[in-house]
């Protein structure tokens, strides 16, 4: 099973889209989720889930307007990922969530998003 994202970055309030290719015939659950890491206890949430028919397919998962956006701080980091689950197998693709209205601004002023 593979997860191919259309873009490696999305905005808060936007959506994360891509394609799941699954070998088996069973249904595939696709989750958009975030988690913290660092010095504190982990906070985590799955913000959206969609079920695809056997063999996978296209998905588009909305990102909440309030994020949280991806960042790597000194004590806290927030990481987003798309996880595809089918039977016992799981495939994960990391995605960077930028602030609302930040996609072009980020590329121009801060740094290009990671390659997809």
């Amino acid at each position: 099973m593979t997860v191919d994202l259309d873009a490696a970055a999305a905005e808060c309030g936007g959506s994360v889209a891509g394609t799941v290719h699954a070998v088996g015939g069973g249904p595939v659950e696709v989750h958009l989720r975030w988690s913290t890491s660092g010095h504190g206890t982990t906070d985590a949430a799955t913000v959206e889930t969609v079920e695809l028919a056997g063999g996978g397919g296209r998905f588009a998962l909305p990102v909440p307007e309030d994020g949280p956006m991806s960042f790597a701080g000194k004590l806290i980091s927030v990481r987003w990922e798309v996880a595809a689950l089918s039977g016992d197998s799981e495939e994960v693709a990391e995605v960077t969530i930028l602030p609302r209205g930040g996609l072009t601004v980020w590329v121009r002023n801060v740094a290009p998003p990671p390659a997809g």
Partner: protein
Amino acid sequence: MDQHEHESEERGLPVQHVLTDTSDRTTALLWAGASAAFFGALAVVALVVADPPLWLLIALGALGLVALIVAWARVRVWAGWANPQLFMPSSAPLNLGDRVVARVRRAARGRADLAGLTVTAEVIVLERVRHGGSWEPAEQIVYRAPAEVTLIDGNARVVEADIALEIPLAEAPPSLDLSHNEVVWELLVDMRAPNAPDDLSTFAIDVAPQVADRLQRGGAGR
């Protein structure tokens, strides 16, 4: 346009004098309502229920008291009794890359006078985490920058100052409020006068995960 507005425009700062925060009023009313509900329930239980359990009376009384304290704190801000008081351009959160002018007002208490008051301000961002069941969080300042202060009105009793807040685009993450992990933005305002007690006040600032309009329109970088 008064002198302050003119100077603000020359600095390229938005001139907004909406010096009210409706969220303070809403929060005050909500907590006052909650307090009334708890004390009302306490009265009903105490008067109607025969031989009410002591723990229930204590719990309702404690909840009512906590709600009353929170309501009182918001009422002080809403009614302008907090001193010093910060006025933001609006009750909406600030955005990454925003530039706004906040106003701080301090009134003298008792026989103190504020002649010769100096005001300095800085914005700091803290990352605060809790690990496991630890009660005390660990925290670290991840960003700090001075803010430009302009005294706009002064007499011995009441002094106001404008504080130019610049929220950086990428040097610090926006506000975050999770169970164990927080990013907290604060404005620290230090006020000193020869004939009044020093005052160091901390005001919370809410910063949303959104880029300021001026940058989205293709304005200046960070």
